[in-house]
């Protein structure tokens, strides 16, 4: 139905003339539904004409509530009711004035009851499929006029209760995804006051619901919370208000600290809830972008982060960035940070999907030139050892990373070039060979003796089956003329990107063909012939 959104838009502009003209237009385009909708519009117009027709409101609400059969009529009724209430509020007919008569008071009371009735059914509509967007727009529209006109004596009042009702519906288990996304993107992220009161509402919700088995509230809350990405940095940025801003300059909405406090409370309330591993990862993933910046006291995150960091596996990987944020911003002293970091280098790291993220951080952590060489060498050796069993996509970033570190810590180049000058040592080497002094199982990166070892693994990777990786690995044995490689170029590769790169290219040059046509491929050679069977034939039985 094309009219609905148009209606909403026109409604915002409050153009009476266009509202009057609409029936004829609609009658032309939609002759079938014209009846019900024309009736609704007629009722609406009557309300505006005289006070005695206020009873039409009840009729409209009835249509809105009852008319389950025709969704279009329902929407039209909702829209016209919204118009009616907005106009009533704007004209001041719903506010009790000092000189109002008893009869008027009764009318106002009745109107307010109808209004509440309308709101509650509108909120139900919020979680309905297909209508949620209209319902949300109407809700927010009502919220705005309520905040602007239904001032109960004070100078500024935000209809917090109505907003928290909306938020409760949105967070609820059966709320719709689209409405939440729209609310997050259009209102929470855009308007400072809506964000402020949403945080406030969210803080109370988890406690109110307190249903540990219900995971959806948690996920939905995170969704709304993470929508508020742009953290204001100064007071001046607090200027986008949905409802006309309070006149008093000392109002709490103007205080950055208050905003941050609300956000912090909302997040902390969320973290108090029980969460499983996935949810924890979800929070950790958003940590540096939309959680930590909101916190007045990021120290409050410390427990959460250290717990996550100690959890091991991918949770630790994700917590790493949060911990780093705290170290960087709040001077957090994490005991044996590098030891913990070193322990993260396990067999899964190069196969993990978070490896790019980890590499970016690792690059930062090891970029200091003041680190002990033994420590850096341990990281180098361990990662190159892991690269031996890694996929090409995992091994690709390791090599430029090693290059950069070797360049930064020239003492470590002993790991790629160590000439034995001592004659005795040389003789021992000749006779007994060399056992790798590196201790893979040692947990302390200072004690692994990696600096005494060599990076044979990288030499092996120079013979890797993937031509690009093999060529890349050769940079370690070339002269180190380049200052540093940009690690970003090598991250985020995968089998499919490598395959895409290979297969998307046209074959321009004539492809080489094996010269000899083998006599046998799947079957064994005759006993008499001297040709040896291929490995395939020896191992697999094709019959």
């Amino acid at each position, binding site marked *: 139905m094309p009219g609905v959104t148009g209606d909403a838009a026109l409604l915002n502009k409050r153009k009476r003339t266009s509202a009057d003209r609409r029936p004829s237009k609609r009658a032309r385009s939609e002759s079938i539904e014209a009846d019900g909708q024309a009736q609704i519009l007629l009722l609406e117009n009557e309300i505006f004409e005289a006070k005695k027709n206020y009873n039409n409101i009840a009729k409209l609400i009835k249509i809105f509530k009852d008319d389950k059969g025709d969704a279009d009529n329902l929407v039209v009724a909702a829209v016209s009711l919204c118009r009616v209430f907005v106009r009533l509020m704007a004209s001041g007919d719903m506010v009790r004035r000092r000189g109002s008569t008893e009869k008027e008071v009764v009318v106002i009371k009745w109107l307010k009851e109808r209004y509440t009735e309308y709101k509650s059914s509108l909120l139900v509509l919020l979680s309905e499929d297909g209508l949620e967007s209209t319902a949300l727009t109407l809700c927010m529209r009502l919220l705005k006029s309520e905040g602007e006109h239904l001032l109960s004596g004070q100078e500024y009042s935000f209809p917090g209760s109505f907003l928290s009702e909306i938020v409760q519906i949105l967070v609820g288990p059966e709320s719709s995804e689209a409405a939440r996304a729209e609310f997050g993107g259009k209102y929470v992220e855009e308007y400072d006051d809506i964000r402020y009161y949403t945080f406030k509402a969210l803080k109370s919700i988890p406690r109110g619901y307190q249903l540990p088995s219900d995971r959806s509230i948690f996920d939905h809350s995170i969704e709304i919370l993470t929508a508020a990405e742009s953290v204001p940095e100064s007071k001046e940025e607090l200027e986008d208000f949905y409802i006309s801003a309070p006149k008093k300059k000392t109002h709490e909405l103007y205080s950055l600290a208050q905003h941050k406090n609300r956000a912090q409370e909302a997040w902390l309330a969320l973290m108090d809830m029980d969460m499983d591993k996935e949810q924890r990862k979800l929070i950790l993933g958003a940590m540096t972008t939309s959680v930590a910046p909101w916190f007045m006291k990021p120290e409050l995150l410390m427990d959460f982060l250290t717990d996550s960091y100690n959890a091991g596996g991918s949770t630790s990987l994700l917590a790493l960035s949060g911990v780093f944020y705290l170290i960087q911003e709040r001077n957090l002293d994490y005991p044996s940070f590098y030891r913990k970091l070193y322990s993260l280098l396990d067999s899964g790291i190069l196969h993990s999907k978070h490896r790019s993220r980890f590499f970016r951080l690792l690059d930062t952590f090891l970029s200091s030139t003041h680190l002990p060489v033994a420590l850096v060498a341990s990281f180098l050796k361990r990662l190159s050892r892991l690269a031996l069993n890694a996929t090409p996509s995992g091994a690709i970033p390791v090599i430029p990373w090693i290059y950069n570190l070797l360049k930064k810590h020239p003492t470590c180049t002993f*790991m*790629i070039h160590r000439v034995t000058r001592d004659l005795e040592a040389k003789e021992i080497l000749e006779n007994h060979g060399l056992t*790798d002094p590196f201790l893979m199982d040692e947990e302390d990166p200072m004690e692994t003796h990696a600096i005494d070892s060599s990076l044979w693994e990288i030499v092996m990777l120079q*013979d890797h089956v993937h031509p690009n990786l093999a060529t890349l690995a050769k940079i370690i044995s070339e002269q180190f003329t380049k200052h540093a490689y940009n690690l970003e170029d090598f991250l985020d590769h995968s089998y*499919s990107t490598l395959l895409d790169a290979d297969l998307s290219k046209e074959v321009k040059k004539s492809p080489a063909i094996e010269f000899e046509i083998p006599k046998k491929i799947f079957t064994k050679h005759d006993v008499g012939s001297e040709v040896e069977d291929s490995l395939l034939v020896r191992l*697999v039985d094709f019959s």
Partner: protein
Amino acid sequence: MPPSQLKRLKASLREQGILRPQESKKQKKQKTQNGGNKDKRVNRTEALNSIRDQFNPFEYKWSKAPRFDATSVKNPGGKESKGSIVGRPSVRKSMDAQQFQMNQLARIENRRRVGGILDRRFGENDPTMAPEEKMLERFTLEKQSRHKHSMFDLEDDNEMELTHMGQSLSLDAPAIVDDFDEEIEVSDAEDHLSDGGPRKRRRLSSDEESEDGESGEDRPEKKKSKHEVMREVIAKSKLHKYERQAAKDDDDDLRETIDKETSSIHALLQGMGRRPVAASTSDIAGMNPDRAALLNGTDKLQAEKEYDKRLRQLAQDTRAKPTERSKTEQEIVEDKAKVQKDREEKTQRRMQGLPESSDEEEVSQASGKLEEDDEEENPFGLGIPIQKLASDMGVEDEDDFLIDNDLVASDSEIESAEDTSSDDGSEESGEEDDDAEFLQGILTEAESKQSEFLTGANSQVPSLIRISKCPESHEELLDMTEDVNDFPEFIKLIRTKYHPKFGVDNKTKLGGFTISLIDHLSYLANRKAQFSVLESIIRHIHSLAKNGYQFEISNRFRYHLKVIHESRPMALTAGDLVLLTAIGTIFPTSDHFHQVVTPAILTISRYLGLKIPQKLSDYAVGAYLCTLCLQYQRQSKRYVPEVMNFIENTLCVVAPSELSKHPGHFPYHVPKESFRIEMAIETVRRLSFSDCLPQESGQEELKAVLLETNLKLLEAAADLWSGKAAFFEVFEPGLVIIQHLSGKKCKPNLSPSTQTSVAKLIQKLTLLLQQAQLSRRPLELHHHRPLAIKMAIPKFEESYNPDKHYDPNPDRTEASKLKKELKRERKGAIRDLRKDAKAVAREALKQKKAKDEAYEKKYKRLVAEIQGEEGREAKAYEREKEWRKKGRK
């Protein structure tokens, strides 16, 4: 008031000691005795010169004294200096005038003159030269013009000489003696120095001398002067020259005689007598008589006939040409060996990622960029296209062979219609053995399988297969082969019938057929066809690839890989496995980069690396792919980490009991259901291709098979990568796993054969690891030449001169140098012009003066003449008057 010039001159003369009081005789004597006389004279002239200078201050131009002595190089000591004399303007002026007189005056005077004779004789107009000098000059000039040739020019001696009264006027030969004969022998002897030259020469010369009867043998040998030696050399070369000329003359004579006979030879060659040349044509010189005849149109008809005849002759000539000599067996073997060696070299080069042939090598430094690497390291297509290469080297061409054979068998019409080209025949004979075998193999397979192929419903004889058209897509192929049971025979027939040589568009048709064959390969494999059929299809595809369809084939394989990549990277079908196997045989898997093989390896390693096996068949597919991978790398021995990961993972999963701690760093995937071997099986069969397909039965047996296969794979991998740098790290975890397998917990559940193979493998791996450890050395990767440190310190100039430019930029230096030169030249040119103008003006003035003077003289003379005459007349008048007066009286 300063003293007068004269007084000053006297004073300075006295000062210098030139004027001095008269010396007594005694004093003079004393001085001469001391030898100071000569000294005195020198001093005297010097002193006089300086005095002269002093009294003519405007005769000299002085250079400016430097402003600060310290900044000047010329006078670094800081001594006060006035500058130095840099020019003598008056002298210069007079010299210029003289120069002008000599060079320009004549030119200026002759400026508007036309015609005349230029006298170029030496010094003809020079009165300063004596006649003798002139003659001398002429003589030297003539000599010089003679000698301007190269000093090695031997011709000059033969030229005319100036003679006087029959005697040479040459400088170096006092008498003309032809010493030709006697010196040849000497020089000849010199030629043979090696065989006792000196002695021989001595004897020879002594012989001559004795003949002359001049002196005995005891006369000491005279050492030759340089002049003599030179003369000998010249004489010798003259002799050589003469000989050469004589030989050439002989040759010319011979050629002339042969040339005379050319016409008859022509006639012989053309098989007919030379036509008598038409008289009318003889006047057109330099034109082919035939052509001339044609032009003249006298006998057009005859000429055309002639033309046809010659054309036919020409055609027959080529046919009658002798074929190339057939090679001996040894030569054939050598050629083969050479071709083989060439091939291997190329493979090696490709393996290292270099261009195929060395002369096309463009050394491109491998840069860090992966994307760039791809482009640069793609060494293919640079070289000679494979097809051309093959035919050039005379290698087998199954295509041609197939045709010939099949033609004999089936269709005699085509055979008789067109004779096969000769090169076909030669190639066939060259590689007959291979082809015969290839064909034979197909035939026998075809015959043996014909009854049971596919459905087995038909029992048609192969030759009865009807071929209506060439299938160009897989659908068409399927339609046509519905009732064909001998597929290899069908392919052969298609390839015969639609051979590119038999039709214009057969090439594209066969290309389409090739593509459909590849599709059919995977189609058949998915329908569990006979592997012998698949094998022959693969071999046919391979042969087609070698015969010019490499683009179609590789593109089709790449298309299939793309389909796998996009739709089922983790669920490979039997068809995909067969395609991957086919890629491994058709394309060189050892190449550093190959358009088909590299994506194929990536597809395999993607499955091995990312697949989390859920069923036993997944493990079987993995084992198959590992085998393929190892086979791909049989030559280049490149490391494939995924293979090791998969083998170790499978071993851990299948092992009868769990390892306490997983060694190594391969990702260990715990399967949902346990695949541990629970009981031993008596005999373990080989892994079968059908195991790769998901199935329900025989699970327990398959576990044992997988274990056994993976053990073999581990062994093969260890063999393959035994020399690698990190062999120890790669295979140590494998050893730990196998040792676990031989432990108490696992052993009872293994079959006896597996137990023995485990034990063997443990032994082998231990040995290999030991070797690896023994041969391990610290890395020494950076034995590079150290890089020069860029200099940033300014250069210190030892003897710095502020006037000089020390610009490190050579371009700028050059430019400033040029600028300076230009300025100088410009100044010089202006000065010259001015000087000339001045000289011209001076000359003009001089001439004008002379003219004026002449005029004045003439005027005066005339006036004087007239005055004289008048005076005389007046006197005569006076006299007359006097006389009359007297007379009257």
